[in-house]
């Protein structure tokens, strides 16, 4: 049986046929406040998956399906999932071609995701394209090698530059589970067309899948179309055994001309917008300074945690000043934060978020990202609401907690 949970009774369970205005846009009697657009109206959680989360977002005539698969943060799973993802993306793009449906895919900090977008009335076709994305890959060796080469290039790209190397070292120090990226390249080389089907069965399990549906398609229709998705069998322990004991290969050494230095710290839960606000404040502060060296701020998603990093690069003559700036960035950028400074930062963040979600696929990505991180269907909505509550006082309380946490340092020398 299907478990049914209604996230927001106010918006109703299923989309009804709505009137259309002169422009073809669907018109509903009540306009939806922008924040409410982020609130799911239906969550279906059938036993065995996949979970389906619907956001109605009326008016565009499009439907977006974003399917994500949670992947364990181990070298084997990460590298295999990357290959399967690349193969699935090719299969989906081929299937989407006849109707010009939009296909996207990304590897996320929590696993992998596919997004399919097209007219709502072509929903059956969209579901078919999505099924193709997660279908068991064919036995083609050429396709496998092509996917492997592409994934390997992406992984190596991180380590080719000092900035990538520094970031990877910081991540590995801050959160232990983030250290797999280096070792994943070794596992990547070991995947063959013989082991791939078993790995697919292990990773592409419906219970590990979530689908965010944006558009005027009832969630039940989506569930009916996607019930048989992915692998229905499990058990690949033997295959995984073959990967145990793999030795890490020498990873690419970057060419380094300047001194690189970075500091990072756990910046709180991903649904807490204070870390994003702080990152933007620090970024603006750094941009206004011109000292003959480069500095930047980065915010990483790791599990359901944000990690805030400040990174700098300088030639030896400026290295000491650069280190001082990186070290003092948080305290100096937030020295005198009042409402007049915070307001434009909050407005800019809010606008960027609303702008990213102005398309069905953007909204699906927002909702899917926060769901993937937390497992909560309305986490994206909660984040939007929390952003409206940020004030100078709440920011200073957050800073007090943040500065009490340990700081991780890393550097890359020429």
């Amino acid at each position: 049986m299907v478990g049914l949970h209604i996230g927001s009774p106010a918006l109703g369970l299923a989309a009804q046929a709505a009137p259309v205005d002169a422009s073809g846009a669907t018109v509903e009697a009540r306009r939806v406040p922008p924040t409410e657009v982020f609130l799911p109206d239906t969550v279906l959680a059938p036993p065995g998956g996949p979970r389906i989360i619907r956001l109605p977002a009326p008016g565009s005539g499009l439907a977006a399906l974003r399917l994500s698969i949670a992947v364990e943060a181990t070298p084997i799973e990460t590298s295999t999932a990357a290959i399967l993802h690349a193969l699935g993306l090719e299969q989906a793009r081929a299937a989407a071609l006849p109707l010009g449906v939009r296909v996207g895919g990304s590897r996320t900090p929590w696993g992998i995701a596919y997004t399919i977008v097209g007219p709502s009335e072509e929903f059956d076709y969209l579901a078919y394209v999505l099924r193709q994305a997660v279908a068991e890959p064919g036995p083609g060796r050429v396709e496998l090698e092509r996917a492997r080469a592409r994934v390997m290039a992406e992984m190596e790209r991180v380590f080719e530059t000092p900035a990538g190397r520094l970031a990877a070292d910081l991540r590995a120090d801050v959160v232990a589970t983030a250290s797999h990226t280096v070792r994943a390249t070794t596992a990547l080389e070991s995947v063959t067309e013989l082991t791939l089907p078993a790995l697919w069965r292990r990773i592409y399990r419906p219970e590990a899948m979530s689908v965010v549906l944006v558009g005027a398609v009832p969630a039940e229709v989506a569930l009916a179309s996607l019930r048989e998705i992915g692998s229905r069998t499990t058990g690949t322990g033997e295959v995984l055994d073959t990967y145990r004991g793999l030795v890490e290969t020498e990873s690419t050494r970057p060419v380094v001309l300047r001194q690189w230095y970075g500091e990072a710290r756990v910046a709180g839960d991903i649904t807490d917008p204070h870390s994003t606000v702080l990152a933007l404040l620090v970024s603006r502060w750094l941009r206004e300074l011109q000292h003959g060296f480069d500095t930047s701020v980065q915010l990483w998603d790791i599990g359901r945690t944000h990690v805030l990093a400040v990174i700098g690069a300088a030639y030896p003559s400026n290295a000491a000043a650069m280190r001082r700036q990186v070290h003092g960035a948080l305290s100096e950028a937030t020295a005198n934060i009042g409402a007049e400074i915070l307001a434009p930062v909050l407005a800019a963040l809010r606008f960027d978020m609303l702008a990213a979600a102005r398309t069905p696929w953007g909204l699906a990505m927002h909702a899917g990202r926060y769901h993937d991180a937390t497992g909560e269907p309305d986490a994206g909505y909660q984040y939007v609401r929390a952003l409206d509550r940020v004030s100078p006082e709440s920011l200073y309380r957050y800073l007090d907690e943040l500065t009490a946490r340990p700081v991780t340092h890393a550097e890359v020398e020429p």
Partner: protein
Amino acid sequence: MRIRAHAFKRWRGSLVGAMLTAWTLALPILGAAQPVDGYVRARGVHVAQRPGATLVAVTVVIPVGSLHDPEGAPGTARFLAEIIAHSVRRRTDADPSRLDLRVERGWTAFTLLSTGDAWTRSWVALESAMFRRPLEDVAREEVRTRLLARFAFEEGIPAHEFQRELHRILVGTGHPWNRDPRAMRSTIDAVDSSVLEEFRARHYVAELAVAAVVGPVAEQAAHEALFPVGQDARGAIVPGGDPAWTEGDRLVLEREVTNAWIGVFFPSPLDQRRTLLEFLAFQLQDELNSLPPDPGLYSATVHIEDTPRGPVLVAQAAVVPEASGRWEERILRAMERLGENDDALFRWRRRRFRSASLLREAEPEATALRMALDLVREGRARSLPKEIPEIDAYELTDAVGSLANPRILLMGPDLPTP
């Protein structure tokens, strides 16, 4: 069932129609705006509600472009628009909004993207900068510096020469429509504020502009906020008649560059339905970019140019020089094939077109710009989700048949003779 057109039939109609312009001879709509439902609804403003959108997009189209630049000061339209946009961005820096600008040959479009609770405030900043507030000296000088720096980077690009020749072919040598909307260095360098203010006073008139609003807005509130924009908007008069030219032509420009450019231009009758023409452009582009990709092709695009003499379907391809002859032929044959429609094939093509239209207009600002340009061109905003399914195979075949003989432009090294 198969339907076939005799493509590129000889056009024997009067040339009088071709001399009329849907754009520059537009006549005012008769009568003032009338109160509707207790408020004044302008003919030149369209509001499309998207209740689930997160942002509001407002596009204002001013009926002025490089076509209207003063003699001896090409680029005035663009310089002025850039200054206005720059000062709005400075004033709304703290607002949750974004302003995009496009200056073309016959129009200038400002597109504001903003949150539902702030769009009227940002709109006031844009409206006053366009129609009321004097131009700011600081903004003018900052824009001047930025544009001059960009000129240094852009000058001497072969693709620009191809574009210049392309537009010369479309309307003939010496026509003011041929002026490059990117402007001229001499104008940016020398034009002073009195010229700019005078130009603005003549062309930036709120009542003559048109606007489209798309997003989670109430129609009445949007009309009230935009008043008096569009109150006296000139609805384009579609004369009905001949395409821009009837005789085909072929121009070859030998240039020692690394690739060849091909342009094939199909003029359409002035009263051709826009959605049908867009469908044709979409299909031709699809045909030219079929899979597997042609190894000799860098890029192939198709778009509609609204010339003063009517719409022209412009197919362009950048190819390796040795493939230029083959590609010229391929474009011509592809258009002929579009006149042969099998019912099932037609329905499939129409689904593809509908899908592409919806995806293209998923962003509210794309819909707002398209609707505002609809208002300029034909005095109404089209509903593509309604119009596309109404197209039938016969109409498409007729549309191909109604195109006059194409003009062709080739530029590159060692080009083939016909």
